[in-house]
């Protein structure tokens, strides 16, 4: 196999790759933060013990987890304009869909995290006069979050890779950048090889970074 990377000029990188990379990173960051916040709320609903909160939260999470993300993206993109009566841009649509979808996954992680905090901690919070919100916010969630950091990270790496599914609605992400460059120059093998390396470096770097961060914020036991 003769490989030809000569077309990979700085110009190509800046016009094809950088834009996609930025979008992927933005989308990942936004969906991660939004997803964790929303997911935590869903997890608290599911753990509340009140049927009128548990049932809708569980239904939402289970449905989202049973449908491929690309279908959710597409449905949201195609159907919401029909409901709203006006179109939503591909980007905005992607931000909203990813947040809603990832929330289902993050909620499962946060639920496990909350359950990993001993019940005695909740009792201790209450016993000191804290109310439900304070106990969750000051005692339980900080611990749940620290305990679950590695899993949250793994999910975020998946999320970063999944941003490529925005192809379905014509948004432009990192992988799309590589693919288009590959098609325009008709060098798919070379671009995919570079893509593999770039993704590996980013994702692996990310997991290293978080591993380091975790060592710093992990709970000393």
């Amino acid at each position, binding site marked *: 196999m003769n490989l030809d990377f000569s077309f990979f000029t700085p110009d190509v990188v800046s*016009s094809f790759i950088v834009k996609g990379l930025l979008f992927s990173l933005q989308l990942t960051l936004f969906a991660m933060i939004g997803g964790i916040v929303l997911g935590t709320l869903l997890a608290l609903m599911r753990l509340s013990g009140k049927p009128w909160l548990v049932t809708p939260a569980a239904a939402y999470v289970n449905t989202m987890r049973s449908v491929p993300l690309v279908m959710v993206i597409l449905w949201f993109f195609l159907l919401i304009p029909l409901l709203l009566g006006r179109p939503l841009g591909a980007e905005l649509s992607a931000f909203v869909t990813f947040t809603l979808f990832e929330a289902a996954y993050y909620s499962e992680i946060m639920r496990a995290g909350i359950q990993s905090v001993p019940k005695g901690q909740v009792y201790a919070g209450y016993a000191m006069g804290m109310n439900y919100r304070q106990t969750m916010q000051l005692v339980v969630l900080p611990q749940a979050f620290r305990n679950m950091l590695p899993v949250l990270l793994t999910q975020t790496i998946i999320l970063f890779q999944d941003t490529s599914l925005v192809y379905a609605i014509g948004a432009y992400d990192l992988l799309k950048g590589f693919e288009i460059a590959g098609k325009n120059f008709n060098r798919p093998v070379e671009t995919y090889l570079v893509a593999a390396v770039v993704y590996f470096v980013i994702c692996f770097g990310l997991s290293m970074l978080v591993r380091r961060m975790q060592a710093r914020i992990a709970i000393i036991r």
Partner: protein
Amino acid sequence: DTLSKIKETGTVTMGVRESSGLSYTLGDGKYVGYHIDVCQKVISDIRKKLGLSSLTIKYQPVTSQNRIPLVQNGTVDIECGSTTNNLARQKDVAFAVTTYVEEVRTAVKADSGISSISQLAGKTIATTTGTTSVQTLRKHERANGIDFKEVFGKDHADSFLLLESGRADAFVMDGSILAKNIATSKNPAGFKIVGEVLSVEPIAIMLRKDDPAFKAAVDDSIKAQIKSGELAKTYDKWFLQPIPPTNAKIGLPLSGATKAAWANPNDKPMEDYAKR
């Protein structure tokens, strides 16, 4: 309706493809190609007609799966990718007069000795998922009783790679796409386009249904471009001259079918071409 919406908002949303023969991106939000040039001319004509001093064009990349819903739901005002005008689609959307007639052909390796589709019995043929060529191939197989193995690339670059790497003996696809892939390949002399035309497809600008005023405005502009020879110039620019980003020449002369369509502007669907 679309014209008044354009006038009101001062913007028009153009549906574009990231990488098709007639419409592709150079990255950085730049979209170019034969159909895009045609559309830009159409839009500037419409701007003059509406008496606007400026009109912002928003580019909305579309895929073959979502382009029709996007035109239907109003996200896209004028779709300038490379969409085949056929009867099924006419139920959902409208088409402007045909701007280009695509011919489905076969690319093979130059040294393969294959010169006709009939030599492909028992061979492996590549084509791309989500294109009409797949169905064309199936029809052909059924009609002539030829049996060939099919492999489907996820996009044209993939399919071409199948041919290049020897996994497939032929690549059946729109002629313009074949020509472009060959022109930009590492060894353009190693491939050739052979054999009969498997199907003929009119390519047209796609518009929202039931908006005759807008369609008339677009049609008029295209007809004017044909008359003034501007369309032929645009064709020459994209099919016979070096094009970005690689400066390769596609080298696909104007076909008889396209000439005929220009001579007699119409929005007939693909099925009408097949009957002839």
